[in-house]
């Protein structure tokens, strides 16, 4: 697999290249939504990806800013005007920030955002690479040595300087513990040793050349390489050490964690080392658990007791319809369309039959799914990737027209009569046995993916196929999904983050393991199609944008449509909500200066940019 040798530019990273590398090293977040592609298109393509439901509320057009804003008293221990309040998940841990301890650190509590800092940040919205703890990185000419230069005035929040020693300590700590994720992956494979000639310089001698090794130290999605302070962690057992209060280099430090309020209060670090580049206005940032009652959560947003989150699309639509003045909805677009994965292993009976895949495809009512099932109005999906401008080049209208995705139960019945005629009792028989289809989904009952699958199941039952649907808890579903013990799994397809070859390579026959064996995320639907294998092997060594690759991709798409191992249903719209009562300057659809997600490290820069609205808090 040849890597096009382009000298790495210093400051603007080839974002696409970074993504391809990370996805191949499966360093990307596991099942979590991958934001990369979507944001690219949203900013570069202008209004392309925006689904924000600006005008319609189901009660007629929205009257802009006509509703008076009565602000409620927020239940926080800090002055309201100087505090940013973010509503997040249900926190359970309040006395430990050592994420290497199982359940040890509260995720999305603010710690990963503005207390932890990373060496480099890749702003996926603008494509700009921001050196932060480090000033720059340099390879030797044959890419077997990587040098990082650290910012001389970088300091930990307890005043001690942040040096290359801390970096070396962290790398060695992870390398020595194979069971920790960071340790098992690139660090072990490519790092031979780390030297620190001076406090600002760290040199990694590598086992084998890799021009993209530095990508591992850039914060791309959610987080990045977390340097631990040596003077705090040295000699501690990482699996038991209670890191409280957490010492890192970020602009905020822990003020207090209140378990009975499920609340984290962070305050500004007075002698933050990088005030020149980042001096956030909020004196305090408070992360609280969203109320379990949707009414209470929505009211908290309406009364401006929360600045970020805590409201869902229905309530936002209602507020817009009432002309609520302080609601900013930033459409965040997920690159993974919702989809049904169909098992191709012969042992699964009728589902392995390719024609059956088209029967199921004809039973999917995408317009109903897109309008009535998904919280936000979203378009149907014809290709197994997100409909971003950057993905337009993979679409092939000519092939697509030969395989239209239409909702046509009668056609489905015709096809079904061919492969599984009705038996005496009106039940469909396939190879002598009654045709049964077991649908599973990791999503809770009444969740969108569950409901879409249930609609298909109801149609199948109407046609005489014995179909069942079961919502399984995360781990139980994952167990069946990896072992192929399912006929259909209703979830999402995230394989294509860069080019369709990623999907085809994942479906190669050599990766298909028998049902019952753990597929470890490779070809879970056990597709074995020689023609696709052949094409995929050729495409792997080709620059996807070359026209030679184009014919191969078209042929591969055609085979994909014939087999339909995974059926895309709709695009996935995830809106983010901001309240402008106390803070303005949020990233919006038209001005997406940074990733709008409040649990990503990059949100630190959003906090750096927002301004107080000057509103006085109620007594």
């Amino acid at each position, binding site marked *: 697999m040849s890597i096009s040798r382009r000298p790495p530019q210093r400051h603007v990273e080839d974002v696409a290249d970074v993504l391809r590398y990370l996805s191949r090293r499966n360093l990307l977040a596991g099942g979590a939504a991958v934001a990369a592609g979507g944001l690219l298109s949203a900013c570069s393509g202008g209004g392309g990806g925006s689904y924000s439901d600006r005008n319609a509320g*189901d009660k007629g057009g929205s009257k802009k800013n006509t509703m008076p804003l009565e602000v409620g008293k927020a239940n926080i221990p800090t002055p309201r005007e100087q505090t940013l309040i973010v509503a997040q998940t249900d926190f359970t841990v309040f006395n430990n920030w050592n994420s290497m301890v199982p359940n040890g650190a509260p995720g999305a509590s603010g710690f990963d955002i503005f207390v932890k800092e990373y060496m480099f940040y890749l702003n996926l919205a603008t494509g700009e690479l921001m050196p932060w703890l480090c000033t720059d990185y340099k390879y030797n000419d044959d890419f077997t040595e990587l040098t990082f230069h650290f910012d001389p005035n970088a300091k930990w929040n307890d005043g001690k300087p942040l040096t290359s020693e801390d970096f070396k300590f962290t790398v060695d700590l992870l390398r020595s513990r194979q069971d920790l994720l960071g340790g098992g992956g690139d660090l072990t494979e490519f790092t031979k040793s780390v030297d620190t000639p001076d406090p600002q310089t760290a040199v990694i001698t590598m086992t084998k050349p890799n021009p993209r090794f530095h990508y591992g130290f850039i914060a791309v999605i959610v987080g990045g390489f977390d340097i631990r302070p040596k003077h705090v962690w040295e000699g501690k057992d990482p699996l038991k050490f209670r890191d409280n209060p957490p010492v890192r280099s970020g602009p905020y430090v822990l003020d207090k964690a209140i378990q009975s309020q499920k609340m984290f209060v962070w305050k500004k670090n007075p002698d933050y080392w990088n005030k020149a580049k980042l001096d956030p206005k909020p004196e305090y940032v408070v992360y609280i658990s969203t109320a379990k*009652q*949707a*009414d209470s*959560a*929505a*009211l908290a947003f309406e009364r401006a007791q929360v600045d970020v989150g805590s409201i*869902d699309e*229905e*309530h936002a639509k*209602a507020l817009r319809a009432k002309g609520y003045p302080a609601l900013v909805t930033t459409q965040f677009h997920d690159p993974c369309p919702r989809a049904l994965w169909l098992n191709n292993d012969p042992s699964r009976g009728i589902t392995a039959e390719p024609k059956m895949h088209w029967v199921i495809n004809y039973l999917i009512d995408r317009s*109903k*799914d897109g309008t*009535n*099932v998904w919280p936000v109005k979203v378009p149907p999906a014809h290709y197994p990737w997100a409909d971003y401008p950057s993905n337009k080049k993979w679409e092939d209208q000519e092939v697509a027209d030969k395989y239209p995705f239409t909702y046509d139960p009668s056609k489905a019945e015709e096809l079904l009569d061919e492969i599984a005629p009705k038996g005496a009792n009106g039940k469909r028989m396939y190879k002598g046995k009654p045709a049964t289809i077991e649908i599973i989904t990791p999503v*809770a*009952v*009444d969740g969108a993916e569950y*409901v879409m699958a*249930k*609609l298909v199941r*109801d149609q199948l039952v109407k046609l005489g196929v014995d179909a*069942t649907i*079961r*919502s*399984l*808890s995360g781990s139980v579903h994952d167990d069946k999904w990896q072992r192929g013990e399912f006929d259909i799994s209703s979830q999402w397809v995230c394989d294509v983050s860069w080019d369709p070859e990623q999907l085809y390579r994942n479906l190669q026959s050599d990766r298909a393991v028998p049902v019952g064996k753990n597929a470890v995320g490779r070809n879970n639907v056990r597709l074995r199609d020689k023609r696709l294998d052949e094409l995929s092997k050729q495409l792997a060594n080709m620059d996807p944008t070359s026209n030679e690759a184009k014919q191969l991709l078209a042929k591969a798409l055609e085979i994909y449509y014939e087999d339909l191992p995974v059926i895309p249903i709709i695009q996935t719209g995830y809106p983010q909500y901001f309240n402008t009562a106390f803070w303005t300057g949020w990233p919006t659809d038209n001005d997406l200066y940074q990733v709008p997600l409040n649990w990503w490290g990059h949100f630190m820069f959003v906090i750096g940019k927002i301004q107080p609205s000057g509103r006085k808090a109620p007594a």
Partner: protein
Amino acid sequence: MMTSTATIGRVLKAPVAVVRSSPKLAGGLIVLALLVLTALSSPLVSRAIGHGADPVAVAAYERWLVPSPAHPLGTDQLGRDVLSMIIGSMSTSLQIGAIAGVISTAIGVVVAFLAGYLGGWIDAVLSTFTGILLVIPTFPLLIALSAYAKEVTLFQVGLMLSIFSWPFAAKIIRSQVLSLRTRPYVELAKVSKAGAMEVIVTELLPNLAPFIGVGFASAALGAIFGLVGLEVIGLGPSGVIDLGHIIYSAISTGALTLGAWPMFVVPIALLTLLFAALNMVNIGLEEVYNPRLRSER
């Protein structure tokens, strides 16, 4: 068993007199009958609203429609008609209450007779066991059980709930069996070498009828209480859509602040009515057995 026809006659005739004598019991039964009727009318209602199509199917209609003649109680977050959903789930709740009530009463009666009638160490063991189940908080056990009974049928839910509601019935019936056992006519029957079973059926059962009724009512109450409790915090078994489930979806989607108040208020009103009716039956029966408890007319 020549006396059986006479006893059966007596057993049947008694209820009619009993009901007429206590307004609370009559009131409770009337309300229960009304609720059962509404539940039975669910096919009619869904045909009236759905005009042939299934009004409770997902995305049958637009989402969050305001109550209108076509949809008297509007639609929910998945575009299902709320009225037909509520009435449909009404029958589910009643069935679960009935199943759990019957099973728990059956177990309760058996345990009560074994303990109360035979006495001795059997009584000690059984009543201690019942005592434990009555005292210890059984909700955590119920939550854990339901977390693993994802896809369940109605009967399984009823069975699951009855595990924790039979002690209510057992306790009430046992205390009565104890007091009846020492009554003269029971002694007389025992002396006439009648078998234990015969004594139980001919002498004890008819007199315990009101208390078995009370046991059933409180067991059914306990079961529905348990199930609705689970569902209101979203841990209910997923295969079953009953009133508690609708309340949960109303809470989790914030229906009230969206203005869709029927989805929240109507199920609560119906369940309150159900609980009130069961309670009136419960107390009515107790007053029948203990007339002095009745307030002066």
